[in-house]
């Protein structure tokens, strides 16, 4: 809400000693938060001048400039020389003025905020231009660029007069952020009332208007839907002179409040809306046919609103109609065909009170917000309509020469707001401010125009008609606290009962985070949005589950219409960005949720709020939500260990990608089985699936060459992703008990020749289980070549044998070794 400060000062009777900053600070403390103080930056000398002569001088560039002599008053004039009279020489490019006109001149040293710099004397077009003749736009006045040079009415001022004061050019405007519960503050009346309360001044209500000539019909009205339109008032004004201009002060206030000055009748309507907060409408009486009907729209009805948009109406839309059809979308915007124009002399003034939700829904439906809709949505004073119509009518009489027609139509009435009853000590208890006693509360509430009665230990508070925010006891507490001051709230640290610390899952998630960092991965965060293009780049088949996204109604971009199903979409994009920025070796990780549609999930119900939903109802809510597991993903490109003086370094391989998963599993003490699979976006022969009790919980491996190409990543890049919820869910409460023996170890190296198809991991696992003395088995060499037959390979293992309770004998070692060889023979392995 933009509030012109002089207007507010006048309304409140604020002493001059109160600065604009003080005013803003007090309003902010009263829940009308200052966003910005605008204006007040202009500084002179900006003076009235009389054009003495203007000589057109055509220029080589095709323009014609005026070389002017301007009388800017004895204080600022250069003395007369020869036949050149006292004044200043000024070059001006505009032509809508001439000798004898009164203009506004910014002399050197003037700062105009619209230009952003200080005017100085400068040489141009062969003259020294000693100032500037100002346009309306340069002065920030209504009219904008079309206005050209501002020519003042003759006799308004004398050359040399200060134009800043004359035109109110330095008026300040408060831009206040009005919270949605304080609809009343969308008016000077509402802001003024709070300002008066904040400064302890008696408030004179500008809506205190005597309504005259009430006998008879103003303009006939039928309200078919009194729920949606509880009050509708009409009154007529005739004989308006359509050529009368809007008074300059009114136009200025409108512009300062962020509106445009359009025509006298429209400006008065808007001015009264700003002043009293009640949107109102003036119809051209000549264009209305028959009585006004307020009704819901009919299917297929259409309406062209004032913004020249033809709208298809919804049966829930509330309309203002005449015999011909709709003339306005109630509370939002009038129709183009009954608009005031420059021949309008007779008008029908409408001032109504519409149901807040009806207006809000229609405005949302038509994506049409207006100054009127904004106010109706937040609630206008339902006791104000007749007085607003009167105010508009009187201004039309005063400034437009019109005549108020006898008769006033008032349909409907809204009763007083219901009283709120609360314990007298509730404000003190909830605000936590010890000084708030019953007297403080009562005074604060009466200051807010509430009627207050103390009945025993209860306060009975009846809010004024315009306070839609006062419904519950706690609402009343806020009003008391607002007056007492939020700065009065003391600081008391509550003592929570002992908590249980982080949950196991929360702890383990942190552990995973540190394990990923410990694996040399740099964590990134990406937006979880994706689309077909991303899945194509990953090479996902058409029927891949991961293409089934949770879609959004209003995605930011059509390329990313929904939520991602894999962290790799964001991670590989980030990897591409790094490579593009010249990083050769990149190792990234992300932890985050992905989203997967659940088949046949119901829509989420909307329950009432007057009670807790039952457990069954809550279960239905949860069943509607998509799966959203927490995942961890990683990618490694380029070198895993850096080349340098110590050696050639080592490239990241599929093995590194798998190792990250096993490292996470170890960190969580879970056993992950590894299986070879072919799955996008991985190289079909270099991808591992991770299984937890037979369930696949992730994949890792080398990325498919085409995927690497699609993302602009270097060859042999690798990646992986696991479901952390699954891993963490499987983590035992306690890790394994450490078991080890202090007796000597016996180390045996065993090399086997096996078929190429034998999987080393399987053989290693089998060897590890080949006898009770086997402490560990580790593959240390794989060989295929001349030394072994074609189709075969050699696998060499380092086997460590140890007993828990004695030193091994040679016989035991021989036996254990034989058992290992025997076990290996089941894989067709022969000792090499």
């Amino acid at each position, binding site marked *: 809400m933009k509030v012109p400060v002089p207007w507010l000062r006048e309304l409140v009777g604020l002493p001059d000693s109160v600065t604009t900053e003080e005013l803003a600070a007090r309003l902010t403390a009263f829940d009308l938060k200052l966003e910005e103080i605008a204006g007040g930056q202009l500084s002179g000398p900006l003076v009235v001048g009389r054009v003495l002569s203007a000589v057109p001088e055509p220029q080589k560039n095709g323009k014609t400039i005026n070389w002017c002599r301007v009388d800017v008053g004895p204080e600022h004039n250069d003395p007369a020389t020869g036949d050149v009279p006292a004044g200043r020489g000024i070059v001006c490019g505009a032509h809508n003025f001439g000798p004898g006109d009164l203009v506004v001149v910014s002399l050197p040293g003037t700062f105009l905020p619209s230009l952003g710099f200080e005017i100085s004397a400068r040489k141009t077009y062969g003259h020294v231009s000693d100032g500037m003749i100002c346009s309306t736009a340069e002065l920030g006045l209504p009219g904008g660029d079309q206005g050209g040079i501002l020519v003042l009415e003759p006799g308004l001022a004398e050359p040399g007069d200060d134009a800043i004061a004359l035109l109110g050019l330095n008026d300040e405007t408060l831009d206040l952020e009005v919270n*949605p519960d304080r609809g009343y503050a969308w008016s000077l009346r509402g802001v003024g009332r709070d300002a008066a309360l904040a400064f302890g001044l008696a408030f004179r209500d500008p809506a205190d208007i005597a309504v005259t000539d009430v006998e008879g019909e103003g303009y006939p009205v039928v309200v078919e839907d009194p729920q949606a339109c509880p009050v509708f008032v009409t009154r007529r004004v005739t004989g308006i002179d359509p050529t009368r201009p809007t008074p300059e002060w009114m136009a200025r206030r409108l512009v300062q409040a962020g509106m445009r000055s359009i025509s006298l009748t429209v400006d008065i309507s808007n001015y009264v809306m700003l002043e009293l907060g009640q949107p109102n409408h003036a119809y051209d009486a000549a264009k209305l046919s028959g009585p006004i009907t307020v009704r819901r729209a009919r299917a297929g009805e259409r309406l062209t609103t004032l913004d020249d948009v033809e709208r298809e109406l919804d049966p829930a839309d509330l309309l203002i109609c005449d015999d011909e059809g709709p003339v306005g979308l109630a509370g939002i915007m009038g129709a183009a065909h009954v608009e005031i124009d420059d021949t309008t002399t007779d008008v029908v003034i409408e001032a109504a009170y519409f149901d807040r939700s009806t207006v809000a829904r229609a405005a949302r439906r038509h994506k049409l917000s207006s100054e009127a809709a904004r106010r109706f949505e937040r609630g206008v004073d339902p006791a104000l309509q007749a007085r607003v119509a009167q105010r508009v009518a009187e201004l039309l009489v005063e400034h437009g020469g019109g005549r108020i027609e006898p008769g006033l139509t008032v349909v409907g009435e809204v009763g007083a707001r219901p009283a709120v009853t609360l314990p007298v000590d509730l404000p003190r208890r909830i605000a936590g401010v010890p000084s708030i006693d019953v007297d403080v509360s009562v005074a604060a509430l009466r200051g807010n125009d509430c009627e207050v009665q103390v009945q025993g230990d209860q306060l009975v508070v009846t809010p004024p008609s315009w306070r839609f925010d006062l419904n519950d006891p706690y609402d009343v507490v806020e009003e008391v606290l607002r007056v007492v001051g939020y700065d009065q709230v003391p600081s008391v640290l509550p003592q929570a009962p002992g*908590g249980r610390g*982080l949950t196991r899952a929360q702890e383990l998630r942190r552990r995973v985070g540190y394990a990923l960092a410990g694996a040399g991965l740099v964590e990134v965060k990406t937006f979880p949005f994706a689309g077909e293009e991303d899945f194509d780049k990953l090479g996902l088949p058409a029927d891949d589950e991961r293409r089934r996204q949770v879609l959004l109604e209003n995605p930011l971009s059509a390329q990313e219409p929904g939520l991602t199903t894999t962290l790799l979409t964001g991670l590989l994009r980030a990897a591409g960005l790094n490579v593009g920025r010249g990083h050769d070796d990149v190792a990234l990780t992300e932890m985050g949720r992905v989203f997967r549609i659940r088949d046949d999930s119901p829509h989420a119900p909307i329950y009432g709020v007057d009670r807790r939903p039952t457990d069954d109802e809550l279960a239905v809510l949860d069943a509607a939500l998509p799966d*959203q597991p927490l995942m961890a993903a990683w990618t490694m490109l380029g070198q895993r260990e850096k080349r340098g*003086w110590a050696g050639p370094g080592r490239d990241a391989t599929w093995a590194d990608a798998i190792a990250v998963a096993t490292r996470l599993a170890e960190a969580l003490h879970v056993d992950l089985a590894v299986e070879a699979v072919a799955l996008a976006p991985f190289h079909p022969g270099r991808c591992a699936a991770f299984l937890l009790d037979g369930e696949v919980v992730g994949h890792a491996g080398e990325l498919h060459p085409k995927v690497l190409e699609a993302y602009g990543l270097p060859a042999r890049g690798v990646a992986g992703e696991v479901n952390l919820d699954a891993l963490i869910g499987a983590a035992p409460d306690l890790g394994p008990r450490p078991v080890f023996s202090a007796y000597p170890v016996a180390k045996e190296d065993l090399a086997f020749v096996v078929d190429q198809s034998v999987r080393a991991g399987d053989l290693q696992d089998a060897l590890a289980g080949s006898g009770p003395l086997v402490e560990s088995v580790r593959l240390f060499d794989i060989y295929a070549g001349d030394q072994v037959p074609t189709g075969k390979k050699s696998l060499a293992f380092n086997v460590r044998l140890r007993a828990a309770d004695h030193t091994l004998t040679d016989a035991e070692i021989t036996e254990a070794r034989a058992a290992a060889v025997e076990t290996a023979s089941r894989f067709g392995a022969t000792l090499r």
Partner: protein
Amino acid sequence: MSAPNSDYDPVEVTPLRADEVERMRDAALAAIAAADSVEALKQVKIDHVGDRSPLALANREIGALPPQARKEAGQRVGQARGAVNKALAERTAQVEAAEFDRRLAEEAVDVTVPVDMEPVGARHPLTTIQDHVADIFVAMGWEIAEGPEVEAEWLNFDALNLGPDHPARTMMDTFWVAPAEAAMVLRTHTSPVQARTMLTRKPPIYIACPGRVFRTDEPDATHAPVFHQVEGLAIDEGLSMAHLKGTLDHLATAIYGEGTTTRFRPSYFPFTEPSAEVDLLCYVCRNDPAQVADCPTCRGEGWVEWGGCGVVNPRVLIACGVDPERYSGFAFGMGLDRTITSRYDIADLRDLWDGDIRFTEPFGIGL
């Protein structure tokens, strides 16, 4: 070897003469002193201590002496051999130590060469700050609660007193899940976690909910469609705005250091009543009159906006099954992304989301 000396004339046995033993000893000692390597000492040992050395040979002659002469000769040769052995041991230790030192000196390296061959990981500051804030709450005896990011409309709005026509709803810039009838949203705040906690737990409740939230803001230098919040909720008997202030003051101090106080400004949120915005004493200039005017962080205000808060609206308590006659509570929420950008002077919010490793790396594994 000579034949037994039956005449008893020790002087007859030349190698056992005192002057001869002395000469052999001195020769050995001189050779030991002259040896300057382990190699040379090996030879010296052979020459002067070994089986064929003069002193060893002389020692054998002792047996040839008459018994009454053996003692003196034995003592003489023994002392000489002892002196030689001792000198040899000392010299050996000396030479070995010198050689060891020399070898170590030769093994010296240039320790200034780059040593970062192993990859070094780092955690994103938004992760770390969420952990840090969680720890502050846990230390106060609070617990950390969580909930889904795709959330039911009822929990994100209705249960929080944001009815379908509430003007504040449209101010939330909500991502809606398709189709709209599904009545699901990307949560616009972590408040549904508060509602879920109240729906499933009995008071007293003291919880904080850090997490990722969503608004339909096009990404630019100061906006992102995804950001992080931490919200807190306390429900207990007798809680007031004063307890809210105490909690926020404590949190401010824990995050921004001693002396960081807060102030309330009235505001409006449907889920709290009374509601306030909370400002933080500027952690850069501390509202110091000498500095505040030029402070880039608070732009001369002395205070920086921190978050929203208030006393939980009893309507929310009712929808979530908490008895408003018995319990009251407070709630608050603040953005964490801005905590990072403002404290580290990060001008462009997109840096947090682009994934450039140079953004995360400097944070290491902790702030």
